[in-house]
């Protein structure tokens, strides 16, 4: 056998052993049980020694291979420490310890892998939504199924009912309804026809579409969301980078310490015990586990958190600034209060709807929408009175609809009750529309922008989570803004603000030592989004929102905000717990090895593996977090 084939055989053997790690673990367990029963029950020393020694050799094989590979690239890994310890114990003919330590190490690694997969499951669900194949128009004019990687920009693709849209593209022909939940979080299907844009990862619920690919693979909106989340879960905070550096020197330091201990004390047992208990497991894995579970929970609930730095900052936020009234209100005015001064309500409503249908003023739209389906009358001659309202003739009646000025012009008498109602409506922030028929007041309607349903409760939750200042900055007039603020219990409200004023205001808050989050739509408020400690975009997964912000609330859903804040707080706390657990365990082990006589290699390995599982399980709690 020449040198090359030998090397190849060795590497094949190595890989074979590594791939059978789980089997080896099982066999070790059986051998250990066999060894202990024959020693304790049957008092058969020979069988016991042979089983335990075999278990040790078998068990250490995969660990030693990993250690050798690590040393080859100049890394002193945990495997190195464990391998030396096991060999040491073996040479001391302490087969019980060498067998148990290898088994615990292998079994621990097995459990770690399983539980780690759980913490990563939320993000895996997301990435598995990525499209895999596409029906591509080939040169011979036939659509053929190809891997999505083979689709280029400009290719023409066919999407059938039930299929995933493979790329971001534009509809060439066909109609259909698409569920865009994976991009916008909104599960109501959206109608698509020629020239509509479609997004990769969304699902065609009915119809058939031919589309041209505009962006493919990682460049699609969905691809970028996935990349963002993947990078976020692996992004490192200051603390983590420190731990990384620390662990790089930590393992060699443990090795050094063990050697020094051995040289001084001449106690091999003590030296190899030190090697095992110095393994840095829980410390290195604790923080990433919290991170990935927290970000995974967010991804599942429509909250994209960009990395662990963001989690740290957001969890300490004390001031949240909302960029405009529209974030807190629905954004289209509706009839909120009404009062009739007539018995023939139906007839008056019919007249009013007929008149207001002639106008496209927002207040008129709100009234038409509010009245809904009523028998309409033919309208003769309408006059629009600028800044006041509209006057028309219906069935020979003179109908006027507009504000108080219009009523005065029309010489309409306002009763004491009517005046009281007007004052009351105005006080609650309404714009008024009065209706008169033949010079007599018949109806009064108050129209205002509605607070988004649930916003008040959500803001309460934010306060409970420790946010002290809730501020709205708006371009609207101060009166409107004050009303919204009062109704929602905001701490501050500023109207007449231009985008420049908003970022200046945020700067001021920050200079006073506040940690500020800014909630915007990512369209024209990027400076403020970038400037605030935490920029939160309420964009339905738009590119701008994804680029400029630290946190993206999919589907502009306000109710995700308290979840996002609570989640970052829980995640930050979880990281701290894990660090405390990890450091605590190492300190306790170190103390007990020098101060007590019950500590040995097996116990050290058990505690060590247990602490790793504890931090993973602790991190896993975050997956179930919900307010």
């Amino acid at each position, binding site marked *: 056998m020449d040198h090359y084939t030998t090397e190849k055989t060795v590497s094949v053997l190595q890989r074979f052993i590594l791939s059978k790690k789980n089997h080896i673990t099982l066999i070790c367990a059986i051998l250990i049980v066999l060894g202990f029963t024959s020693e304790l029950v049957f008092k058969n020393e020979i069988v016991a020694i042979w089983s335990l020694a075999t278990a040790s050799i078998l068990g250490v094989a995969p660990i030693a291979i990993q250690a050798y590979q690590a040393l080859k690239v100049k890394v002193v890994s945990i495997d190195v420490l464990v391998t030396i310890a096991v060999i040491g114990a073996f040479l001391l003919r302490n087969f019980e310890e060498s067998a148990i330590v290898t088994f615990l190490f292998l079994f621990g690694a097995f459990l770690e892998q399983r539980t780690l997969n759980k913490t990563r499951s939320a993000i895996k669900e997301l990435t598995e939504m990525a499209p895999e194949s596409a029906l591509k128009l080939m040169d011979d004019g036939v659509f053929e199924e190809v891997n999505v990687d083979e689709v280029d920009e400009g290719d023409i693709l066919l999407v059938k009912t039930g299929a995933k849209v493979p790329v971001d593209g534009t509809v060439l022909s066909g109609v259909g309804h698409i569920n865009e939940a994976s991009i916008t979080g909104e599960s109501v299907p959206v109608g698509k026809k020629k020239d509509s844009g479609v997004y990769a990862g969304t699902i065609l619920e009915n119809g058939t579409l031919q589309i041209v690919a505009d962006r493919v693979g990682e460049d699609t909106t969905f691809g970028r969301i996935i990349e963002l989340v993947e990078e976020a879960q692996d992004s490192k905070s200051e603390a983590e980078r420190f731990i990384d550096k620390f662990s*790089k020197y930590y393992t060699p330091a443990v090795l050094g310490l063990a050697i020094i201990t051995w040289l001084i004390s001449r106690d091999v047992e003590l030296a190899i015990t030190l090697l095992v208990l110095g393994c840095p497991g829980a410390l290195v894995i604790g923080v*990433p586990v919290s991170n990935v579970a927290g970000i995974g929970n967010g991804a599942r609930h429509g909250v994209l958190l960009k990395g662990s730095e963001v989690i740290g900052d957001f969890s300490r936020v004390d001031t949240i600034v909302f960029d405009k009234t529209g974030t807190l209100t629905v954004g289209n005015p509706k009839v909120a209060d009404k009062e009739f001064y007539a018995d023939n309500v139906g007839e008056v409503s019919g007249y009013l709807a007929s008149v207001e249908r002639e106008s496209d003023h927002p207040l008129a739209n709100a009234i038409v929408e509010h009245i809904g389906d009523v028998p309409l009358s033919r309208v003769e001659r309408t006059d629009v009175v600028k800044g006041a309202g509209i006057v028309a003739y219906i069935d020979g009646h003179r109908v006027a609809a507009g504000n108080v000025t219009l009523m005065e012009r029309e010489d309409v008498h306002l009763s004491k009750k009517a005046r009281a109602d007007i004052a009351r409506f105005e006080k609650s922030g309404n714009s008024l529309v009065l209706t008169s028929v033949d010079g007599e007041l018949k109806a009064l309607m108050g129209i205002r922008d509605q607070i988004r349903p649930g916003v008040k409760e959500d803001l309460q939750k934010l306060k409970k989570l420790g946010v002290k200042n809730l501020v709205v900055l708006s371009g609207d007039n101060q009166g409107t803004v004050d009303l919204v603020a009062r109704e929602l219990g905001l701490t501050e409200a500023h109207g007449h603000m231009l985008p420049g004023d908003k970022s200046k205001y945020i700067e001021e808050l920050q200079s006073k030592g506040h940690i500020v989050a800014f909630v915007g739509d990512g369209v024209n408020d990027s400076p403020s989004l970038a400037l605030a400690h935490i920029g939160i975009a309420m964009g339905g997964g738009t590119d701008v929102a994804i680029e400029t912000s630290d946190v993206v609330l999919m589907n502009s859903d306000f109710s995700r905000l308290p979840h996002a804040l609570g989640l970052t707080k829980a995640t930050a706390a979880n990281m701290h717990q894990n660090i405390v657990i990890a450091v605590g365990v190492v300190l306790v082990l170190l103390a007990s090895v020098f101060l007590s006589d019950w500590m040995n290699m097996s116990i050290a390995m058990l505690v060590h593996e247990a602490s790793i599982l504890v931090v993973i399980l602790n991190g896993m709690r975050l997956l179930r977090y919900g307010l």
Partner: protein
Amino acid sequence: MKKATIQLETLACPSCVQKIEQATKSLAGVEKESVKVLFNSSKVKFDFDAEKISVVDVERAITALGYEVIKSQVKDK
């Protein structure tokens, strides 16, 4: 210069990351600064000079460490 993403089997220990990172960095033709091993998504991302090294070479180096390569993707940069 090309950009590669290699998807690996699920990585379980952070020290695997260190090993893979070192091994990838040590290959001639791989842009050292660009090597990123993503622990949670189990991916290796790096830029490389296609005239000096191919993705298959990098894959081989990683497989030799005992980690299975699931798929890889190369894009022009």
